[in-house]
């Protein structure tokens, strides 16, 4: 069985659980619990362990999606996810500049612990207060377009949008594999 494992990460409320639920062929494993601390102000429940979704596209091939815990605690679960992941997508709400710090923190954490390819998915881009993607990249510390991960607009509620984001991630992974072989 050949399995690609993708980690879906991002700050609380970026749409990680929705992203996985929208594309998964199985009922996602829901580990949402009543939120505590400041997360409760944003949403009543949050993912305490991880979300899991699956796409089985042939008897011997599948794509697994893992969502990181919502609350910003980098515990052993993150370690397990990073060890297994082939690639990850960092979801950021374009209209919530207060989340850019957490997104930057997650991005630095992932970059320093793993070399797997990533894509930045910007959600809520249609909101009037949304920052443009180019500006979000700078706010996350990616100053130059050179060497910056690909950025895509994502609507976590739309299957085609989620699929497009995953395709971009897979293409990024394929390019990194080809580069490693050269």
């Amino acid at each position: 069985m050949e399995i690609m494992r993708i980690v879906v990460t991002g700050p609380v409320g970026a749409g990680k659980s929705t992203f996985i639920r929208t594309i998964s062929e199985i009922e996602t494993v829901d580990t949402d619990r009543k939120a505590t601390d400041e997360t409760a102000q944003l949403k009543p429940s949050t993912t305490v362990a991880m979300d899991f979704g699956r796409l089985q596209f042939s008897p011997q091939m599948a794509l697994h999606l893992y969502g990181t815990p919502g609350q910003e605690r980098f515990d052993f679960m993150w370690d397990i996810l990073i060890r297994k992941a082939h690639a990850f997508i960092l979801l950021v709400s374009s209209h919530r500049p207060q989340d850019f710090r957490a997104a930057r923190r997650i991005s630095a954490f992932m970059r320093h612990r793993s070399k797997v390819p990533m894509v930045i998915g910007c959600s809520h881009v249609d909101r009037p207060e949304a920052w443009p993607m180019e500006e979000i990249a700078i706010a996350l510390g990616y100053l130059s377009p050179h060497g910056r991960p690909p950025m895509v607009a994502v609507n976590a509620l739309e299957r085609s949008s989620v699929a497009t984001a995953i395709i971009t991630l897979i293409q990024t992974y394929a390019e990194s594999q080809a580069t490693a072989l050269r």
Partner: protein
Amino acid sequence: MKISGYFSEFSLGEVFRFLEQGQKTGCLSLKSMDESHALPFLPAAPEHYLFFRYGQIVAATTTLNHQGLRQLIEQRGYLHPLTLQRVMNRYPGNMPLGVFLKSQAILDSQQIQLLFKQQVLTPIPHLFAWKEGYFHFDAQHPLPLAEMTGLSASPQVITLAGLRLLRDWTPLMDKLPLADSTIVSLVNEPPSVQLGKIEWQVWEHIDGTTTIQQIAQRLNIAVLEVQKICFRLMVMGMVEEVVNISSPSTSEPAPVNEMDTDRTGLSSSFLNGIVAFLKAKTSG
């Protein structure tokens, strides 16, 4: 381009870092949401406007009437108002006013520098004391040449000055790096800005493996003090925080190659298959 928010979401230091690193040109409007926004050294005004050119601060005003620099010249007694009026009649408006006045030998370099100090260098660091404020950056706003001395200041330097002056860190407490985080340098050379003694000691301990807590222990200073210094260095774009996993067994960051062992490469047939499968979903 919509760049706006509240300091409680995105602090002024982070806004400055964004504008400097993004080499932005335009007008940053700042509105205090703080009841006690009247601060010494800061002109009392409902809004402050900072003008950026390629990421550097070139002017600061409290109105958009293009009269601010003229008023400063008058206040300092450099020119009589009637003389200044006559000079302004000759000002072509196609260069910073300070450059024009210097080129006409009306003001000298030192006077221009003092004007810039009074307009930008002295008041702006005090904006960091606002507990809450709203910011809006307009990249389409033309630069007000009549407000410009021709000098510029690095937001990095202003941020350092502002955060050093800050006494009440309450609004920034949730933005400080965590005590058990590692701090990693983002620059290869020693800092170009002048660091204080303790700032320099902290900087010297930043090696990509030592946590904030460990730095505090080694220097025998409070963890919070090191967190504040690291935050200053972070918003100056010199370092970044790397959070550690909170489990005791994995608190030391494992090398990347060790962590990659659970993962095997994927075949091209797999990748082609999944892309084709997903493409069908985008159209379906």
